[in-house]
């Protein structure tokens, strides 16, 4: 087995009382794309952090090209040739995209002075393969999806032998994702071993050679992708078969309108947006990166931007001054940026869940009822399959997918009349995803308005009754029923002829 680059055996890691890894093994061969799957909190990111030297394992050995090593820091990992794209975006917001992308190189370089021209040229070259982003821009000014692309670009510049991608496509549309897969394949052909973490089965089966499944910090199995079916992976992950990722659609939407948006405009980001949402209907919003989907939802909820136009909720016109009033009116928005604007990372799970409307956990006189707060958090946590130690633990101690569940629980805790969900299942495992889809469908059935913004087209098509496509800040079109195909949506989103849009 000369082609084994990296071999991990018996890795243990615990955080206080939480055992994140209980003796896992993983073998990486040169030139393979190796998928890593597992429920939220199974220990995938923890293992990657161990490989990258960010966390020290409690027990277990790592061997690199046949030699046993200890990796003490990201620098040492880098020197060995390990590159990692983190699940959570970590960029330096105050410096340019170019510098962010080539930070590791600059760190290693022995040159005294920075050659900015060369730096930008190099960054532009790498970025060019992925997207249209100005390397001179401040990284902090980019949208989340563009930041994700910069993260990927960062990893592509590394001269590495093992490249780890921890859910890189969670915030990407199919177009960008396909570009990424192309790049991955080319890298693998050059002999680089790639660890690819994703909750999207299709991606694993289309692009990967082998798949390893973790459950509860243990290694369950490693399989050759060509020899198995997606159900096998799901079964290994969850321990049971998930027959339906998407619930049945509504037989017939109600005649009354929950949300009616008329001629909504904003100075720069969108114009003349009109649409409506009928009762018992789930509406999807699709579009390319930067089309303005998030901005429209945020504008309606008065979180950001000065909008003109009318918004009617359940037959009443809304005159909202800020998001607080929107929440009072029953209209809430789940942010796509869960770390930056969705969660209070250093506060407890329970406190996060009750943040939206404190009056629900208050007794008379505005006193907080801690028991009520916990009961509410526990109930929602159970409903969403949240995996946690104590409700008083900080959210930062949860795995990425479980953090997302807390963010959703926060929305549900106020019994809203209408929810905008921006990338609601970002980083959520298949089991939980199915559960969230079912919950959303049930809510819609009970009369709650559900608007889903997602970059994952299969999810939109599977979940929604109708999909609105946004192109460059305007409504580019709408598809329902059998018209809801990826091709149709892509062509509306890009404005290019039908065949050209197909991937």
């Amino acid at each position, binding site marked *: 087995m000369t082609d084994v680059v990296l071999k991990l055996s018996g890795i243990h890691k615990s955080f206080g009382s939480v055992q994140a890894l209980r003796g896992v093994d993983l073998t990486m061969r040169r030139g393979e794309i190796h998928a890593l799957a597992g429920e939220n909190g199974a220990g995938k990111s923890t293992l990657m952090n161990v490989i990258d030297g960010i966390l020290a394992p409690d027990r277990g050995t790592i061997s690199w090209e046949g030699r046993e090593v200890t990796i003490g820091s990201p620098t040492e990992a880098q020197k060995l040739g390990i590159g990692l794209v983190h699940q959570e975006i970590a960029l330096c917001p105050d410096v340019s995209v170019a510098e962010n992308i080539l930070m590791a190189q600059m760190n290693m370089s022995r040159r005294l002075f920075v050659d900015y021209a060369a730096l930008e040229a190099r960054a532009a070259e790498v970025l060019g393969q992925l997207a249209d982003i100005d390397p001179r821009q401040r990284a902090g000014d980019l949208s989340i999806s563009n930041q994700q692309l910069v993260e990927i670009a960062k990893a592509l510049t590394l001269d590495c032998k093992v490249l780890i991608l921890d859910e890189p496509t969670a915030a990407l549309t199919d177009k960008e994702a396909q570009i990424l897969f192309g790049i991955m394949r080319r890298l693998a052909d050059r002999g680089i071993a790639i660890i690819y973490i994703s909750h999207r089965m299709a991606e694993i089966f289309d692009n990967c050679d082998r798949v390893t499944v973790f459950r509860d910090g243990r290694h369950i199995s490693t399989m050759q992708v060509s020899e198995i079916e997606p159900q096998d992976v799901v079964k290994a992950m969850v321990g049971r078969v998930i027959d339906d990722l998407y619930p049945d659609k509504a037989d017939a939407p109600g005649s009354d309108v929950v949300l009616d948006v008329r001629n909504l405009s904003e100075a720069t980001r969108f114009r003349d947006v009109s649409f409506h949402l009928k009762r018992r209907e789930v509406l999807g919003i699709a579009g390319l990166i930067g089309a303005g989907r998030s901005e429209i939802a945020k504008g309606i909820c008065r979180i950001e931007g000065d909008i003109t136009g009318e918004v009617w909720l359940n037959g009443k016109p809304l005159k909202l001054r800020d998001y607080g009033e929107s929440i009072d009116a029953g209209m809430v928005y789940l942010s796509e940026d869960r770390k*930056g604007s969705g969660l*209070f990372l250093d506060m*407890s799970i329970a*406190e996060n869940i009750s943040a939206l*409307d404190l009056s629900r956990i208050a007794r008379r006189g*505005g006193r907080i009822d801690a028991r009520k707060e916990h009961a509410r958090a526990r109930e929602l946590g159970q409903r969403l399959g949240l995996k946690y130690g104590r409700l*008083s633990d900080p959210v930062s101690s949860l795995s990425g997918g479980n953090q997302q569940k807390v963010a959703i629980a926060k929305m549900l805790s106020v019994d809203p009349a209408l929810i905008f969900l921006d990338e609601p299942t970002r980083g959520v495992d298949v089991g939980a995803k199915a559960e969230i889809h079912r919950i959303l469908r049930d809510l819609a059935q009970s009369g709650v308005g559900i608007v889903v913004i997602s970059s994952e087209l299969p999810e939109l098509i599977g979940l929604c009754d109708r999909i609105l496509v946004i192109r460059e800040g305007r409504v580019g079109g709408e598809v329902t029923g059998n018209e809801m195909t990826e091709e149709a949506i892509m062509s509306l989103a890009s404005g290019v002829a039908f065949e050209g849009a197909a991937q």
Partner: protein
Amino acid sequence: MQSGTDQAIGIDGTRQPKGPGVAKGLLKMRETGLIAIILLLVVVMSFASPYFLTWVNIRTVIMAFAVEGIVVVGMTILLISGGIDLSVGSVTALAMVIGGWLFLAGFDPWIASAIAIGCCTAVGAFMGFFVTKIGLHHFIVSLAVMVIARGICLLGTGGRPLGLYTLPPEFKFIGQGSLGPVPVVILTFIVIVVIFDILLRRTTMFRKVFYTGSNERAAAYSGIRTKRVIFATTTLCSTLCGVAGVIYMARFGSAQPTFGIGMELNVIAAAVIGGASLNGGTGTIFGAILGAALLSLVSSSLALLDVSVYWQDIIRGSILLAAVTIDLFLNKRRG
């Protein structure tokens, strides 16, 4: 993995005792380390000096930080919301000077005090405006206000202390009187501390302060009017400085334009020793007051032991450093 422990959650994310097992709960409290350090110091000192554990000395130690403790309360809440205030010393002096000046100009001392506190509130609102509307940093705004307020104090008094010996006894009572053996100042201090500690731990209104300080954007995305919260905490801090200033005025029977120089560092140090984070989002009133008590206790002990003045600074600084280090380790171990 869901746990069935017998604990309730405090607002600050710490575990608090509930029902039985108080001792165990106490052990897990954020402030335990600090209490231990203070107790240790008390034990050592009671052996080192026979005067230490007398009621008069204890009263003196408490009196030495009680009024400043009111400012510590305001600073802690402001720190939790993510702000900071360097102007506390100047604003406290401003309250003294305005109150004293109005009293000398013939106002009733109670009305003069109310106006003085009102002026401090206005100063706080002024700072809040620059922070929330203009978008400047608390540090720089309060630095400018620290200088301006000091200037106003000097201008209003010609740089000389105002003698207020003629304040009526019923007014002086709030600064110099006692109810039984306990000075009114200490009672006022305890009442303010208890009220704000409860408010901060238990009410929805003050919970928003934690959300805002922990992640302002996430708070805004939770519908919290974060600018209002920051405006309110900034104003509250200055208002409490005003209250402290009025009590000082009654206590000293004078208004000193140079009062409180350097107070801000002491007050911030107290809050930080007590567990408040300079990045916002965490802190308790109880902890901050323990921090203030520790600092005051150290100063008093050094004086009582006749330690050479040249050594006092070195020892005080070292104890400050040791206290936060020990506290950090105790919390790491526990957490």
